[in-house]
């Protein structure tokens, strides 16, 4: 019995060890070399079917980035500056050369965000608002990619009480409510917070205004 227990324990440790080895932590070498203080967030590219995605996301990036310790350039002003230069679509904005961005905005790094999912999906027994986004942080001086990340959030119903008929009716109601109440907007807030908060695994490093700056 004792030998069997010892064997099980050894197998468990081996399984844990290989489990830990399979996750490759993000390589922060370029990020640490650059140590950007300020971030220019460009209006997000929208690959979803919902036109509200770009500004739904853009209006909710400032808090997580600033709370991570970065100076975030004021997003509405940045958007206006692009508009006044004839750049109204995110696609055009994302194509602006880095040296031009640095000259006008004077930021250390630019954040290129793409929203890949935004909006409601009717899934028979639930109506779910999902927001998924990915981002790339690029040093303006060198063009180096400092960091990439992605996140997804939804307002899926975790409560499966009530029979099938109840769930069908609730889903239909929730679909209408989601549509009328712009349900993706708060979900985008969750996605943005998770995507852009420092301190999580493979997340952004803490910025200069954060007490934990340069501790990672």
């Amino acid at each position, binding site marked *: 019995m004792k030998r069997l227990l010892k064997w099980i324990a050894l197998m468990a440790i081996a399984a844990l060890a290989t489990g830990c080895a399979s996750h490759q932590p993000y390589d922060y070498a370029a990020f640490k070399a650059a140590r950007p203080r300020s971030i220019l967030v460009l209006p997000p590219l929208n690959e979803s079917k919902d036109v509200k995605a770009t*500004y739904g996301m853009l209006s909710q990036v400032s808090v997580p980035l600033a709370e991570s310790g970065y100076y975030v350039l004021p997003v509405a*002003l940045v958007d206006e500056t692009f508009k006044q230069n004839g750049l109204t679509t995110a696609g055009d904005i994302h194509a602006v050369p880095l040296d031009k961005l640095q000259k006008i905005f*004077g930021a250390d790094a630019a954040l290129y965000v793409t929203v890949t999912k935004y909006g409601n999906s009717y899934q028979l027994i639930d109506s779910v608002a999902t927001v998924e986004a990915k981002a790339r942080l690029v040093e303006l001086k060198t063009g180096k990619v400092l960091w990439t990340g992605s996140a997804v959030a939804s307002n899926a119903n975790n409560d499966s009480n009530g029979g099938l008929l109840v769930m069908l009716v609730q889903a239909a109601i929730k679909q209408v409510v989601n549509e009328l109440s712009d349900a993706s907007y708060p979900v985008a807030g969750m996605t943005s917070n998770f995507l852009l908060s420092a301190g999580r695994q493979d997340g952004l490093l803490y910025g200069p205004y954060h007490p934990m700056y340069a501790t990672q």
Partner: protein
Amino acid sequence: MKMKMRHYFKPGVVLAMVLAGGLTGCASGPQPLYQWGSYQPELYKYFKGESHAAQIAQLEADMQKILASGKKLPPGFNAQLGLLYAGEGKDDQAMKAFQAEKSAFPEAGPYMDFLMSKKKG
């Protein structure tokens, strides 16, 4: 009975209780760096083209609360008010707001200088 008492106060158990007590202190989490008021919801309203006057009123009220609590306005807050003032033709107030953003955050310097130079022209 005596043996049971000794069991509960074994060193390992005491250490676990102390750690648990210490950890619950961490449960409340670190303080946020800034107070934001309705900055983000007002940004969304801006992008949706809603009334500038209402946004100014809300942000000015938030600003009073934040400053009264002794905190600094977060990145972009002054600048957003500047944008709204400029939209209402209140150029002097806009310039003051951009200058305040620059004073609070040196990293804002180049962009605020750019905006202020455009206003003067």
